[in-house]
């Protein structure tokens, strides 16, 4: 499963859904795409049926908008701070930890964290992130193909 996380109306937070949009019709048999606004609790029970999960999500600005950080979250916790700042929404690390605790975490989990630049309300993707979307879609597709044991895509 490819999960595009984010809100398209919050600037670069929309990169996950934008990548999923690019992948429409391009995912191989056996793979499916899903967009999430970030309420992972509602996805965890579905993960019981998922063998491999590729998550595309926006990450904090570190100076290179559009740069992708690949995190293999298959074993152990994600190397992200777990801050219980809000009890109302579990973040991705918490969701993976909970799924693992329930014994229904996908066998393989890869997170493609995309550095954002601007997360303004009502804004679209910033130019550098928008320009990176096609390349990120190829990376995500390659992750899917690798999980399925298939060859990398030709346009990689």
């Amino acid at each position, binding site marked *: 499963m490819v999960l595009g996380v984010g809100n398209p109306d919050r600037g670069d937070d929309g990169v996950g859904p934008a990548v999923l949009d690019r992948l429409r019709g391009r995912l191989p048999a056996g793979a499916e795409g899903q967009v999430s606004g970030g309420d992972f609790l509602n996805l*965890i029970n579905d993960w019981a049926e998922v063998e491999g999960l590729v998550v595309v999500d926006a990450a904090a600005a570190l100076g290179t908008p559009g740069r992708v950080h690949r995190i293999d979250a298959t074993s152990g916790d994600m190397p992200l701070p777990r801050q219980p700042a809000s*009890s*109302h929404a*579990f973040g991705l690390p918490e969701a993976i930890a909970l799924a693992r605790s*329930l014994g229904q975490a996908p066998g393989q989990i890869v997170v493609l964290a995309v550095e954002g630049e601007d997360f303004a309300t009502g804004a679209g993707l910033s130019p550098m992130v928008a320009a990176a979307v096609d390349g990120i879609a190829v990376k995500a597709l390659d992750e899917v193909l690798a999980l399925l044991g298939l060859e990398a895509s030709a346009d990689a």
Partner: protein
Amino acid sequence: MATKTIKVEYLARVEGEGALDLSIANGEVTNAQLRIFEPPRFFEAFLRGRSYAEVPDIVARICGICPIAYQMGAVHAAENAFGIKVEGQLRALRRLIYCGEWIESHGLHVVMLHAPDFLGFDDAIQMASQHGEVVKKALALKKAGNEILRVLGGREIHPVSVRPGGFHRVPTKAELAPLAEQLKAVRDTAVELTHWVAGFDFPDLEQDYEFVALRHEDEYPFNEGRLVSNKGIDIDIAEFDSSFEERHMAHSTALHAAIKARGAYLVGPMARYALNFDKLPPTVQALAQEVGLGPVCRNPFKSIIVRSLEILFAVDEALRLIAAYERPAEAFVPVKPRAGVGYGCTEAPRGICWHRYEFDAEGTVMDARIIPPTSQNQPSIEADLKSVASGMVEEADEAIKYRCEQTIRNYDPCISCSAHFLNLNIKRS
């Protein structure tokens, strides 16, 4: 003289930012302050100058868990000001979407946030390794609630279909059918959950609360009713200011609400339950009896049982509403603004959420006041904390901290809403 300070610097498993300061002098708790330091959010100020039509979507942003409560308060207030009454299936749909909010909000709190306190786990992730089936079922329950919001409101979080006069769009009968199937599938979970939580060990604490809730002549309340209490209040929601007042407290960015004559009061599931037990369907009343809960519960730790019973109520009520649903010809009744003041008060998952708006002739907001449940409960939370800590002053600070955090979570406090939480500091002397 020995002074002791116990501090909880940041409370987990609550929404928002707050802390707790406890002072213990000569074996007595002299002070218990819930310090809310989340910055004020100024919603009421930036509603001024906006159209009545924009209000539901602006106030929805106050809370990601209970946006319906804010939307309902806003639309009822506008309709009250403009002399409009929404009835029939549109009214029923409003109850249905509220059922969704109660199910997802209570489901989240009961299992993911509160139950770990009673079982000695740090969080739901830890708890899931030993109580996996309960957690999985609770996730399905929460999802069923969110699904009602999605189908009726257009999306799960911050729904966009609610408007003064009704909805921007109403669902077809066929669109509601899958919701009913999902709700039927989780109904047993609500019953099991109630039995599960009723089996927890509860600290002994009975408080003489003044319960405040809506009371409707025919229904367990969501959107309508008079404001009543168990100590004599029985007023129209427009008369809120005659009995209640808000007070600035130096230690909180959220106003404290109080009954003018008597002080602290309690809103939320325990208040609704105590004041409206007779309006619950026989199935819910019977389950309460089965798990040993009488028609009034004064032990705040047992609020988790009441929340579970309210989940069952909301599931059954949603099923009843869906079964009786016929799509209305119009999604909303016409709204013609006029100058005036309007009031709305609805039962958010955490208790009454009171709104007052002043509109000009075009329906522009001239003034807005919103009193969310958590700010109303702050004085009661502090009173509970004092009682709880007083009974354990000789115990280790860690034990006091743990029990105090649990005490605060009894309220499912939404600090972000109220500031518009938690460090625990215990001072011993």
